[in-house]
């Protein structure tokens, strides 16, 4: 099969033409036993009639086809208006300076392409190049949002047309990037393609009202309304955690209880509600550890104080700001000394650094990451550990939002080196890690056939990397643990491991860091981590 070369102007082809397609045998190969080809899920005939499908044969957004030309033109008009707002100090002070620095000074050298796991995994498809969407966006801004732009475009500065095809394809394409920022890290000029991609998503959300429903309608909107994108209300959150506490007490004989809304506690622990539902062991583990270490802590039952996620980070500044403000207000009301994050990478980035310039006065409450918090507990001397209880192969997945985006690299490693005799690093790791493939909100998105894209394309490099880390004991008879201290990453691994049958074929399961710590506690007799199906 010959590689398809795309021109930048192809983006504005007639609305219904599909630009490229993903064939499984063009992707970089997986090692056995994962090398058999199972076709990728296609849109059904009915979906093809209803939904826009003009990019790569996948639909993450289930965008309905426009009714008529008038509707198309309305969106086109809004898109152009949005381009201008992105350049305005009032509407976009939040990212204007970084945006301009990234827009105006890219040398088009393509050094960044090979750093991108999506591009590499796809067998180097032009459509997934970090620069493909951003260069198009750059030319559109230059042409439509700057004075004299049309003339300059005609004179040879790059001329791309805005039509329905352009905007609908760009919309899908802006969700083919995990915002992992490997491309930004390698760029010699400091250009950040992930940032540009996020600005593009922002334009769609803040001006056209277009956003993936998992991130917006059933994401931030639901969180601001009822407290959590899972739909979990305060009473249900309390009830669920009580259930988990009792369950643990029953099965281990160790009595645990979770403090709620304790005013003046040292620590407000901000879990993600998704952990309660999908990875409850993580929540229990924190409870066990905080209690055992004698920490003065509390959870909050005020919406959304029991769900630390903030999908606004992925697509919308306003929603981002609304949620961090809510979180900070709740902490202020409880008069806690600091907020500590649960194991959720994007929550860390949103609340620790990004929010730092949104919170002013007494809302800017101290915030600590989960890794150094757990490290303090482990090395406090208050809990007795027996590392031999963790004597199975363990490797660490670095969540992009914790390492590359936040610079928290070592505390989690100090814990693992102490408590996991068979700990081994992946290559590359730390700030050079590969993204799990679910970054930038992708891991919670699963509309139409998008899951197939996530597990086959964006997660592919990571999956290979995990298998390589465990290559010394590949068989399913040895239970292996992938430690991924981030809810979004764990969800991506859950989808991926299920799709490939990684537990059955290789004995690999995925969980967080706190679970490993509890598993090594002398007082917890029964194994906390098991390889049974969860």
């Amino acid at each position: 099969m010959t590689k398809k070369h795309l021109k930048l102007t192809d983006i504005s082809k007639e609305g219904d033409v599909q630009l490229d397609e993903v064939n499984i045998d063009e992707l970089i190969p997986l090692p056995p036993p994962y090398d058999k080809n199972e076709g990728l899920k296609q849109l059904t005939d009915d979906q093809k009639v209803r939904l826009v499908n003009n990019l790569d044969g996948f639909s993450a957004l289930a965008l309905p086809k426009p009714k008529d030309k008038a509707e198309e033109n309305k969106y086109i008009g809004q898109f152009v208006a949005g381009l201008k707002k992105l350049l305005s100090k009032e509407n976009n002070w939040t990212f204007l300076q970084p945006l301009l620095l990234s827009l105006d000074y890219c040398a088009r050298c393509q050094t960044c392409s090979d750093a991108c796991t999506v591009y590499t995994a796809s067998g180097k498809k032009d459509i997934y190049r970090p620069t493909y969407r951003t260069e198009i966006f750059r030319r559109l801004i230059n042409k439509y949002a700057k004075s004299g732009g049309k003339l300059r475009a005609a004179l040879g500065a790059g001329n791309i047309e805005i039509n329905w095809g352009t905007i609908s394809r760009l919309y899908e394409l802006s969700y083919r990037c995990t915002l992992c920022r490997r491309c930004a890290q390698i760029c010699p000029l400091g250009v950040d393609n992930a940032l540009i991609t996020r600005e593009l998503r922002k334009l769609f959300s803040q001006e056209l009202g277009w956003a993936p429903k998992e991130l917006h309608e059933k994401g931030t909107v639901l969180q601001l309304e009822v407290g959590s994108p899972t739909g979990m209300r305060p009473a249900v959150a309390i009830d669920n955690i009580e259930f988990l506490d009792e369950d643990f007490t029953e099965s281990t004989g160790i009595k645990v209880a979770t403090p709620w809304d304790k005013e003046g506690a040292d620590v407000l622990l901000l879990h993600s509600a998704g952990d309660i539902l999908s990875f409850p062991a993580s929540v229990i583990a924190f409870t066990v550890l905080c209690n055992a270490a004698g920490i003065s802590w509390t959870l909050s039952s005020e919406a959304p104080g029991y769900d630390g996620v903030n999908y606004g980070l992925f697509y919308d500044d306003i929603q981002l700001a609304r949620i961090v403000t809510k979180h900070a207000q709740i902490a202020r009301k409880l008069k806690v000394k600091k907020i500590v994050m649960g194991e959720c990478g994007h929550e860390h980035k949103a609340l620790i650094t990004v929010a730092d310039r949104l919170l002013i006065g007494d809302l800017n409450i101290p915030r600590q990451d989960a890794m150094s918090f757990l490290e303090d507990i482990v090395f406090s001397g208050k809990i007795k550990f027996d590392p031999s209880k963790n004597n199975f192969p363990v490797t660490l997945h670095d969540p992009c939002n914790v390492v590359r985006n936040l610079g928290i690299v070592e505390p989690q490693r100090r814990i693992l080196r102490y408590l996991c005799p068979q700990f081994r690093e992946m290559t590359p790791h730390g700030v050079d890690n590969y993204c799990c493939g679910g970054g930038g909100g992708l891991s919670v998105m699963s509309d139409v056939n998008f899951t197939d894209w996530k597990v086959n394309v964006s997660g592919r490099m990571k999956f290979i990397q995990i298998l390589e880390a465990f290559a010394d004991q590949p068989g399913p008879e040895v239970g292996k643990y992938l430690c991924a201290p981030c809810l979004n990453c764990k969800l991506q691994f859950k989808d991926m491991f299920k799709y490939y049958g990684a537990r059955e074929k290789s004995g690999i399961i995925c969980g967080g860091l706190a679970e490993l710590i509890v598993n090594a506690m002398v007082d917890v007799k029964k194994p906390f981590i098991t390889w049974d199906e969860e």
Partner: protein
Amino acid sequence: MAKMELAGVMLEVDEHGFMQETNKWNEDIARAYGAKEGINELTEEHWTAINYLRNYYLANGICPMIRRLIKETGFSLKKLYDLFPEGPANSACKWSGVPKATGCV
């Protein structure tokens, strides 16, 4: 919005076939969902799980944790997969007529 006909009713569904208007649900719809996934007869055990799920959803606006489902119905996870081919989240919830779970689950 996609549409799908089940048990003689035209239903609004999402792209994965989950019902969007949960109040239109009836037992025949559950049977029709089951038949589509190759389960032609819904047993007492199916109904135990479906009824528990549905009632929990109606009371709480969200599906129960898997652990709770297991405890309340007394079915192991394996048993649940035997009853519902795509598992509790993708089959059991769908057959019970509640929307697909979202938000980091």
